[in-house]
């Protein structure tokens, strides 16, 4: 088992469910005094109309946010803004309490080591073995080989791929590559996880395996995270299931309840049009959200 970054707290009071965005209301999640991520009026454009416009939201400690929206709406751009891979044209982004919107690349590197990111296609380094991919950060930090091997085995066991230790990414299936990417994101015990369409392009069974891993990570480590997806099924599974550590797999939360720490954001044409719980999502009057759900 991977060492816990911070002890799981099953009795932790969940954040109060945020409501849907009303006209004129700033869509801020009711996070604690110091959210892990806080966006304030963030906009970005790439030689054309804005990709994201006036985005305001936050991610509290222990919170999982699911970012929904059709393809090309700016979901991945928003994710890359969170850890400074892109810089906004205007607005403020705070990561772990530090303003990163204007931070230099040099100063961003230490902050990024505190986050874990799973890319759309895994983004594994083709020329490195699975072991070296997962251990990439540890190798850069010159951690002793014995410890690297131990921690890589732990991370790969978490994603149930310990047998791939010596393989190269080229010999892995799409689903396996995503799971290795999750292991790589987890090995450094991140304080924030960013998932960029981790189930995109996968078959339903493999998608469920990935979602189960995300649920497992959420319920075992309680790392705050944001997951980008356009697959409603995955989003709902994440919200309506919990990881049973005794059974060793994901089970539905009884009585039709949902995970209170898992909430939704939704983008339409670069604007944040929804910020709230699953219940609010299902009962919103917003025409675009209703169309998306249908």
């Amino acid at each position, binding site marked *: 088992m991977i060492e816990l970054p911070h002890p799981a707290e099953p009795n932790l009071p969940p954040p109060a469910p945020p409501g849907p965005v009303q006209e004129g209301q700033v869509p801020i999640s009711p996070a604690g005094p110091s959210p892990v991520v806080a966006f304030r009026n963030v906009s970005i454009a790439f030689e054309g109309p804005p990709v994201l416009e006036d985005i305001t939201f936050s991610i509290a400690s222990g919170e999982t946010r699911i970012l929904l929206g059709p393809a090309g709406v700016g979901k991945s751009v928003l994710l890359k803004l969170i*850890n400074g891979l892109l810089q906004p044209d205007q607005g403020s982004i705070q990561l772990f309490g530090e303003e990163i919107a204007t931070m230099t690349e*040099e100063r961003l*590197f230490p902050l*990024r080591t505190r986050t874990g990111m799973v890319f759309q296609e895994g983004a594994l380094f083709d020329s490195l073995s699975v072991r070296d991919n997962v251990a990439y950060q540890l190798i*850069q930090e010159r951690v002793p080989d014995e410890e690297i091997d131990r921690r890589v085995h732990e991370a790969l066991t978490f994603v149930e791929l310990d047998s791939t230790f010596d393989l190269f990414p080229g010999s892995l299936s799409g689903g396996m590559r995503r799971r290795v990417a999750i292991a790589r994101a987890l090995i450094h015990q991140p304080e924030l996880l960013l998932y960029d369409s981790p189930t995109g392009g996968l078959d339903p069974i493999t998608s469920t395996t990935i979602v189960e891993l995300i649920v497992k990570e959420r319920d075992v480590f309680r790392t705050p995270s944001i997951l980008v997806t356009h697959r409603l099924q995955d989003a709902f599974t994440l919200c309506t299931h919990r990881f049973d550590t005794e059974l060793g797999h994901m089970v539905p939360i009884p009585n039709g309840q949902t995970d209170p720490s898992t909430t939704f954001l939704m983008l339409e044409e670069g604007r944040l049009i929804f910020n709230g719980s699953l219940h609010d999502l299902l009962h919103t009057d917003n025409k675009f959200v209703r169309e998306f759900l249908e």
Partner: protein
Amino acid sequence: MAIDPIERTAKNIVGTVQDYSLFAQRAVLNLFRPPRYWIDFMLQCNIIGVGSTPIVLISGFFTGGVLALQSAATLSEFGATAVTGRFVSLTMIRELGPVLTGIMVAGRNASSMASELGSMVVTEQIDAMRALGVDPIRKLVTPRLFACVFMLFFLTILADAVGITGGAFVTVFMNHQNGTQYFSQAWEHLTYSDIVQGLVKPLVSGFIVASLGCFYGMRTTGGTEGVGRSTIDAVVFSSVIIIFADFLMTQVLLTLFPPI
């Protein structure tokens, strides 16, 4: 308006030059700040230096041979075939050795750097590296840059040596002239300034090859087609700029070291 495309093109050119300057500056300054990736540097020395040796040897040998053939044909009209050795060695050491080696290495390595880094960009491996807290310029570009400068210096010496040998081969076995005379001419008229001229150029060429190869690779956009475009740009621009820089350097070096 018709002026718009011109304005856009001008802005693009200025923007590209600015981006390249900042990129090259970061790549160079990284050498003076830790962490330094010495293993990557050694690996690149092997890829660039050892990997390019065969093509440099072959092209150098035949260039020297062609020089000997052509010069002997011309010099014979003045009854001066005896100075073939001098002609070949000076031309190889001062011009053709550095320039041809630079262009050969550009063809092989600027393309490989641009396509490798370009592929990493389009598959988000560069973003993944940044997300893991590692500076891709420090990790990928700086070792390539210094390995290319370092190895091109020695590859040029190698090209000069085999070029002169190629000239000797032609002189002795095809033109049926005296080998000792060839080598004594090649050696006796060689001056310190010739050597300096010949060995300053590969340092600049190495910088041009690696910095442009990496620069075009790192700014790849547009998927696999973009990788192809970056590769072409890297090879074309590095080859042309090597020749242009050679012209400028020759002008400067001839001023600094005027011919006796």
